[in-house]
Structure formats: C-alpha cells, structure tokens
C-alpha cells in the first residue's frame, strides 16, 4: 500500500484550489508481477522485450519507474501501409491476469495511415491494476486514428500515460472512452512540433459510485499552422468525481496555429463533483485559442418531454447521456465496438 502524488499540471495555481496534482492514498502498487496472457491482437502487433520509457510529462516517477523495471507486456506497432490498416490490441483482465504493466510503442511511417484500437476490458468482478504507456511517433504526412477504451470495473486502478510526437503534416486522432476504475488517472501529452500537424482528442467519461477521474491533457503547439482540438464530454452519477485539466500551450513559433478546448459535464447526482482547469497559455501573437466549459444537470424540460413519451426517469437519463456522447461515438468506425460501449453505458447507469 502506498500514497501517490500524480499528474502535475504544467503550470501551478493556488494550492488551495486542489488541482495542481492528484493525491491518492492506500493504493496497492503491486511488486510481484506475473505474466499477462489474456491478450488478443492482430498479427501486425509485435511483442518486444522493452520500449522507451522517457516521457516529457507522464503520470509521475513511481508509476513510470514501475513500467521501466517491471513491465509485463511491451508491444510495438508499426503502421507502414498507405491504405488504412486496422490494428487491435485487447487486454482481457481476469483472476489470473489482473495486473497489467504495459508499454505500447506506435510508429506511423511517412505517408502511412491506420486505425488502432486498444482495449482494457474485464468481465470479472476482481480488482485489477493497470499501469501503462502509449507512445506514438507520427511521421511526416501520416494519419492515425487511435481508440483507447477503458471498460474496467469500478474496483480497479487504471493509470495511463500517453505521449505523441507529430511531425510535419501528421494527423493523430484520439477517441478515449474512460469508464472503468475506482481511480482512473490519465496523463496525455502531445508535442505538435511539425508545421501543419493536427491532433484531435475526443473523450467521453462516465462515472458512478465512488469513481475518481483525473484527466490531464497537455498540448504544446510548436509548428506553424498546427492545430489541436480537445472535446471532453462526461457524465457523473452517485459520488463520482472528475478533475479535468486541459492545457493548450502556444509556444514561440506556432504562428497561425489554432487550439480549441470544449468540456461539458453532466451532473446526474447532487453528490457528484466536477473540477475543471482549462488553461490557455500563449507566447505567440498570431494564434487563435478558445476554450469553453460548462456543467449542469439534464434539463427538466427535456426529461419531461422524453418521459411523456413513456420512458422512465432512468431510461430518459440514459437516453440523454447517450445523445450527448453520440457525436464522439460516431467517430468510431467499428459498429461492434460502438454497440459494446453503448451496452456499457446502459449497464453502468442502471
């Protein structure tokens, strides 16, 4: 059992606001790590002995060191196809595979394009532990779509550090579905160093019971005409808590760049809590940065309208949440996966 201080923001604000980092107490950080075998992948995924663990940000030393020293799954994916190539990595947690410490390296070669699905899943009720890195190198003119799905149960711990490096004209689209974990802590960093590089992040999260989500997205724009869009939609039920820290940092040289950040949080219970820190940092003149953030409960009028058509309160609520998430779900090409996510929304809001 240990205490963790994770997910520092790139710029601090008053300590009294309780958002510069997240402190977790009594977390079981596993020492004896057995193999993780229950994994399904497409053939283009190679298992390697180790991957680079150097990160600009990352969740914090304790967790990154654990991956450096104790990982039980290191994967490498090279996207080298001009046609859209589909890649799947599916981790299924169960009694014998309840600890995963993984490091996934994705290289998208020049002019290549692909779609990658990374899924963390469990059908069992057992407490799982996941601590992982996903690192993407997107070379010139490449285009990659990556879908990260966390469907762990609400007893588990989910830690993930994501880092992207975008070269000239590279495009990286993320869809992140963040539903699982008693604690689900995400650090995301994009280095848009190439001119005309583009990064889109679409995230949905769904919290219930005592779930805690701490989401820290950092995008640094360096290239001319680079572009970042963050869209984060979520719903919190019961006592769930969400911290969203989104930073768009226009660095010197990022002329003509654009950054947008949009966050919305549905509060489904009067015990749920939403904390937001949408930062815009700017040291370049000719840029455009916007952020918008809002929170509230589902409108009484909409609820009444839906219920007048024969839906129960719970069904109406689910319908509204799914409607809110729909735009982001539509960006996922796999119908099977969308159905699975919709099924999870229904189940988790029951």
């Amino acid at each position, binding site marked *: 059992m240990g205490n963790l201080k994770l997910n520092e923001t790139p710029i601090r604000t008053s300590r009294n606001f309780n958002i510069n980092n997240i402190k977790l107490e009594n977390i079981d950080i596993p020492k004896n790590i057995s193999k993780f075998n229950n994994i399904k992948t497409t053939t283009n995924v190679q298992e390697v002995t180790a991957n680079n663990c150097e990160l600009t940000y990352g969740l914090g030393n304790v967790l990154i060191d654990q991956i450096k020293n104790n990982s039980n799954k290191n994967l490498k994916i090279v996207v080298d196809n001009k046609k859209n190539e589909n890649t799947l990595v599916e981790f299924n947690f169960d009694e014998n595979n309840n600890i995963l410490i993984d490091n996934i390296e994705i290289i998208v070669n020049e002019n290549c394009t692909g779609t990658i699905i990374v899924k963390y899943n469990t059908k069992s009720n057992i407490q799982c532990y996941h601590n992982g890195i996903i690192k993407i190198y997107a070379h010139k003119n490449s285009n990659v779509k990556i879908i990260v799905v966390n469907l762990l149960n609400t007893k588990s711990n989910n830690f993930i550090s994501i880092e992207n490096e975008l070269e000239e004209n590279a495009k990286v689209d993320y869809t992140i579905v963040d539903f699982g974990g008693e604690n689900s802590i995400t650090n995301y960093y994009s280095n848009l160093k190439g001119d005309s590089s583009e990064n889109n992040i679409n995230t949905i999260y769904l919290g219930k019971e005592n779930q805690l989500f701490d989401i820290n997205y950092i995008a640094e724009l360096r290239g001319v005409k680079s572009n970042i869009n963050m869209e984060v939609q979520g719903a919190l039920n019961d006592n769930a808590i969400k911290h969203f820290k989104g930073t768009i940092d226009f660095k010197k040289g990022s002329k003509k760049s654009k950054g947008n950040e949009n966050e919305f949080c549905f509060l489904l219970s009067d015990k749920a809590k939403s904390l937001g820190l949408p930062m815009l940092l700017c040291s370049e003149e000719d840029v455009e940065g916007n952020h918008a953030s809002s929170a*509230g409960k589902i409108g009484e009028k909409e609820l009444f309208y839906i219920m007048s058509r024969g839906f129960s309160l719970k069904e109406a609520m689910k319908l509204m949440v799914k409607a809110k998430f729909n735009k982001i779900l539509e960006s996922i090409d796999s119908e099977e996966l969308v159905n699975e996510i919709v099924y999870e929304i229904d189940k988790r809001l029951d």
Partner: protein
Amino acid sequence: MKSQINEINRNIYDIKNKDEYDFKIKKGLTPEIINEISNQKSDPDWMREFRLKALEVYNRLELPTWGPDLSELDMSEIATYVRPKTKLNNSWEDVPEDIKNTFDRLGIPEAEKASLAGVGAQYDSEVVYHSMKEDLIKQGVIYTDMETALRDYPDLVKEHFMKCVPVHDHKFVALHGAVWSGGSFVYVPKNVKVDIPLQSYFRLNSPESGQFEHTLIIVDEGASLHFIEGCSAPKYNKVNLHAGCVELYVKDNAYLRYSTIENWSKNMLNLNTKKAIVGKNAGMDWVSGSFGSKISMLYPMSILNGDGAKTEYTGISFAGAGQNLDNGFKVVHNAKNTSSVVNAKSISKNGGICTYRSLVRVNENAKNSKCTVSCESLMLDDISRSDTIPTNEIRTDEIEFSHEAKIGKISDKTIFYLMSRGLSEEDAKAMIVRGFAYPISKELPVEYAVEMNNLINLELEGSIG
C-alpha cells in the same frame, strides 16, 4: 503587421517629492519593529497583540509556490511605516504644500468638487485628508480613516477587522495584519443610499517602503454605496511593496460597487487582498483596472453567503514591458439562488505578461445558482505572453455554469476594414483596443478622475474627440 499601441503616459504619476517624513521606521520585520509601529500609532492593547500574532503567522507561512516570481522581495530592505509630516486634515488648505500639489496634479480635489460625496487621501502610511458631504454625515454615514475609526468606533472595528480576510489566508495578509496603517473606514447605516461615490486615493512617495492600508466597508441592510479607490506612486529603482487589505461587508438587501484604478509605478509589487461577504439578496460589483506595478497578484473575492446574493466582476489588465500582472477573481457560491458574472480582459504588449487566474466554487448548498465567466486576451506582439488559468469547482447538480475564454490578436481583416475608412494602421489598432477595453472603461467614473483619461484613453495620435 506590428502593433503600435503606446503605453500609458506616466509623467504626472512619476513626479516624486523629496522623501520627507515625520517618522520612518527602520527597515525589516521584527517584533521590536512591530511594537514600535504600535507605539507610534498608540494602538489599543488588542491591536498590538493582533499585530504580533500576525507577525508569527507571517514567519510561519511560505511564499506562494505558484504565480510570478517574488524572490526579489526582501522584507529586510522595506520600511513598513512612514508617517508623513502632517496630521489628518479636514480642510484641503491645511494639507502641506508638496503633498497638496501631488494630489492636485492627480486631479483629486477637482474630482471631489465635481462628482464625489467624499474623499480620502493617503500619503505613505497615513491618511492626510478626509472629508464628506454634510448631508451624508447627517444620515449617519461614517467615512473616516482607520485610525480614527479604531478610536471612535472600537466595537464596530473589532467585530469586523480581519474577520472577512483572516491573517492566515496567505503570507502577505499576515504581513498586512502585522504592519497595517491607514486606509478607510466606511459605514453606511440601514436603508441609506449614497448616490454619489466616495473615493480614497493612495499615494506612496517614500522609496524602499511599503503601503499597507486597510479598507473596511460595512454597507448595512438595504443600504447602497459606490466606493472608488485609486493608487499611484512615482518610480524608484528598488522595489516598493503594496500589501493592502480590503474587507467588504454587504449585508442583506444592500448593494456595493467597488471600483479600482490601479496605476502603481513599475517598481511596485502589488500583493493586495480584497474580499467581500455578501448577504441575502445583496449585490456586490467589482470594477477593476490594472495598469501599473511590476508584479501584481490580485484576486478580489466574493463570498455569496446569503440566498439570492449576486456578484459581478469586470476587470482589465494592461501589461507592457517588464510587467507581470497576475490578476483574476474568486467567487464562492454558498447559498441558493446566487449568481455570478465575470468579464475579464487583458492586453499584453512589449513583452508584458498577463495572467488571468481564477476560482469558481459552487458548494453543495448553492442550489439553483448561476455562474457565467468570459475571458478575452489580446496579444499585441509575439514577445509578450498571455495565460488563462481558471479553476472551476462544481459540487452541485442544480447549477448553470459556463466558462468561455479566447486568446488572439487583432484580426487583419478588421484592420483592413478600418483602414479603408481612412484610419492608419496604428489608429485602427488603437481604436480596436479602446473598443476592447470599453466594457470596463464605461463602468469607471471617467468624468471626474483626470487619471482615468490618462489610463483608458491610451496615449494615441488624434484620439477620438
């Protein structure tokens, strides 16, 4: 295209008087120095003890781990108490010539004649002039300096002094508690509406010193008041410190508007603390223009404690070369049906840094509340910096909350449009900047403070009118 917006003309602010004083305490911060300030001010015992306790808190607390770098501040180099060579005067004629000239140049006495209900003027550590219109005195309005209030209304002061802003809030509040001097005390009795504003003006003349005035305003139930504070100082090479404290009590159904024009010199560290406690169905509006200082850390705060309490913050910061203005607003919704509206703007040029830092906290009991925040930042060149760092904490579902922020430059299309109407590029940009600042400048009582024209009407070729 490069922007050519001139910085504010500071000439009239920069005229320094000789560093003459009746008493200047030695530099530094020790219990002996605090005791000496108490002796000089003939404090009652409770205040002496209060100061010494605050010093202990000051020594215990750390500098903030965020925001602008304050490492150049060396308290052992700052004289915390400088008594000017005069007593408090009720007649302008009695104020000594050089001090009078200073305030004359700033337009204070004309403003009083033209459109103020009362005026207070502080020079270094003590208030040198105070006056108020006769009819307000008759209605029971009190407007005086804090020292007089401490002597004449001890219970009222003791009940409210540093209760709204407790000394352990942060290090510079503790410092203020230990060395405070001067400032204004206002009490507006129940249901009295003060239609024309009161103004206090703070001038720091003495080099390597600090100003620590305390403003305490109580607007009783159903009453209303508009209070204006202005600040300036001539520029010296070493840092000066301003760590004032403003405590505002807006009781049930009362209304207070608090406007500030801050134009400290660019060697000033402005670490000011302002807080209001707002009662049932009461209103608290802040209007804040931040133009001067080397470093500013200023986050006025409204605590909406009564059902139906409302607050509005309208603020602008303009940072030029060598300035780091870290400003913003804090609001806590602590009761149902409360509302807050924030409209913050900033302009950065010539390497200046503007940061908007804020907190919105909506507590569990603030059902059916509303909060709308809008921030806009203008970058006038590529060597400046502009950051927006807002924290929003929502703990209830029955809330309408929205927050919007924008950073950008003046659009080339807009400049072309104005140029096609005969304006030069510089004029066009200046016009756009003035328009950008207008929502704030229109809230400020321009007509009577000469300094306002100097501050908002930026020094531009052939400006409007």
